[in-house]
């Protein structure tokens, strides 16, 4: 584990991950399984952000579904617009609106005809919202359980809000996308391309998170987590420091949501509410929130276990999930990522204490 914190180790780690994601996985996995992996990679991207905000910054972000959902709906709106334009020419109404009897395109849909606008919105809108929310919350020194409850309530409220929006597909959400920036989504080659986009995005996001962790900012973030008052008394505005990590986590979640939509082919309020938000946290907790790779491993493991188990025993997954969570919290608070460090530390524990004295 120590090796991976050196410069050579970092490159080795990233190279190995790239080799597995870009070389091995497409070789050994069927198209269907590769699509599933792409979906899991989207969860992993969200997890990297949670690892930053929660693991390093101490903010228990129980509502990342909000930002994931924003990115997903923004992308879905563009895909629906592009499909409608392809079918019925400029100004055509997306198919689900026709079915619901909406003849005129709502004004706020119009800009999403533009791919550039859509991508800018995916990158800026959720991040901007996180900055505003972060300032409102952290300047008032809302933290700990209060912050967690607040962010979870937000995810719940956001899902309920979306259910009521007929022009966003209501309860059913948005689905049946045909084209992704001109590429036919039914074509297996294009599905593989989406997988590569997800894998590439994950590596980029991890690289950004790594830089944030290793920078002076990263040290400061840990300092805020461990002693917010002390940081304030050293002359820093702790709220600003937290907002940066919170906004980065929101950005990552939004990117993940945007890739999730063409990969999975549907986004609905059920994929972004309280339960999916808790699933995000669960993976991070199980993988190890404070490390860089831990949240990724945890998110992939939880998503994989969920799929595998619910294929075999549809009703057993919820129980297995609960057991897994309890086991990790009770026995392995540092998550899967801490297994190596734990194994190394056990025999030499007494000497470490002596050295400290």
């Amino acid at each position, binding site marked *: 584990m120590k090796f991976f914190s050196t410069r050579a180790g970092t490159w080795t780690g990233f190279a190995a991950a790239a080799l597995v994601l870009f070389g091995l996985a497409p070789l050994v996995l069927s198209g269907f399984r590769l699509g599933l992996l792409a979906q899991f990679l989207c969860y992993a991207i969200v997890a990297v952000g949670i690892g930053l905000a929660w693991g390093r910054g101490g903010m228990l972000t129980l509502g990342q579904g909000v930002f994931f959902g924003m990115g997903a709906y923004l992308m879905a709106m563009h895909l629906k617009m592009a499909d409608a334009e392809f079918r019925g020419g400029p100004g055509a109404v997306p198919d689900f609106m026709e079915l619901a009897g909406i003849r005129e395109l709502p004004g706020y849909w119009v800009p999403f005809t533009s791919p550039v606008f859509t991508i800018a919105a995916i990158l800026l809108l959720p991040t901007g919202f996180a900055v505003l929310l972060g300032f409102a919350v952290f300047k008032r020194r809302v933290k700990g359980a209060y912050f967690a409850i607040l962010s979870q309530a937000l995810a719940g409220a956001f899902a309920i809000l979306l259910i009521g929006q007929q022009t966003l597909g209501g309860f059913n959400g948005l689905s049946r996308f045909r084209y992704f920036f001109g590429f036919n989504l039914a074509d297996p080659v294009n599905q593989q391309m989406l997988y590569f986009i997800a894998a590439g995005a994950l590596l980029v996001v991890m690289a950004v998170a790594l830089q944030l962790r290793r920078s002076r900012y990263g*040290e400061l973030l840990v300092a805020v987590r461990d002693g917010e008052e002390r940081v304030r008394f*050293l002359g820093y505005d702790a709220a600003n420091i937290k907002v940066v990590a919170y906004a980065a986590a929101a950005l990552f979640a939004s990117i993940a949501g945007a890739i999730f939509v063409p990969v999975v082919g549907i986004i609905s309020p059920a994929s972004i509410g309280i339960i999916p938000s808790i699933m995000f946290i669960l993976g991070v907790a199980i993988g190890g929130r404070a490390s860089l790779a831990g949240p990724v491993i945890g998110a992939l493991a939880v998503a994989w276990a969920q799929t595998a188990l619910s294929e075999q025993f549809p009703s057993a997954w919820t129980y297995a999930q609960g057991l897994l969570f309890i086991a990790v919290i009770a026995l392995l608070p540092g998550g899967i990522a801490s297994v190596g460090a734990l194994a190394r530390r056990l025999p030499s524990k007494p000497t470490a204490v002596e050295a400290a004295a």
Partner: protein
Amino acid sequence: MSTALTCKDIRVDFDGFTAVDGVDLELDRGEVHFLIGPNGAGKTTLVDAITGLAKYTGSVVKDGEELRGKKVHHIARRGIGRTFQTATVFESLTVAQNLDIAAGAGRSPWSLLRRRKHLPENVVATMERIGLGDAAETPAGILAHGQKQWLEIGMLLVGDADVLLLDEPIAGMGHDERETTGRLLHDIAADRAVAVVEHDMDFMRAFASRVTVLHAGAVLASGSVDEVSGDPRVQEVYLGTAHEPEALDAATA
């Protein structure tokens, strides 16, 4: 000697209970100024007020600027540093990281987002000064109790604080560590104002340049060690008979 901090008529009210009741205090550069008094005298509350943690009426002026109503981190930026009764350092970060953070309150966002190439000079120098020169890469969490307190003082030094408010800096220290701390305080007070909230009478006698005695939220007496210990009112409320301070020391040791 020049005045670094002037407090006038500080009053702190907690829901009708007056914890600090009209205190005047001047802290001069070059002095180690002890604030003593029985439990509940308002010493720590006074420090809380000056540093922006507790709301108060009255005025605190540093370099001609009124500090009342400013936020905690703005007051800290103006060169007022404090420590806490229990040493508060970032336990999962190393000594060097702790000091580097403390030295960096003025850093630009751009430099924050980059990796630290090497330690700033004043961090290295301060590490030597507080006796942690060999502990740069040691996590602060496993430092000995006294070392944590030195580290916390060091964090104020690298942050360029010129008014230091130290809350029981020798609590839990052994005899040698107290001596070292006392000398350190005088060393750093050469061009700064240092205020020390303390219970330990021997330590106060050995290292105080000036003493202010607080009782029930008000200043009872102020002056040199001899003046204060000779004051009958002080003897009555706090110092008691000549033997009692030693008993107090034994109890806190």
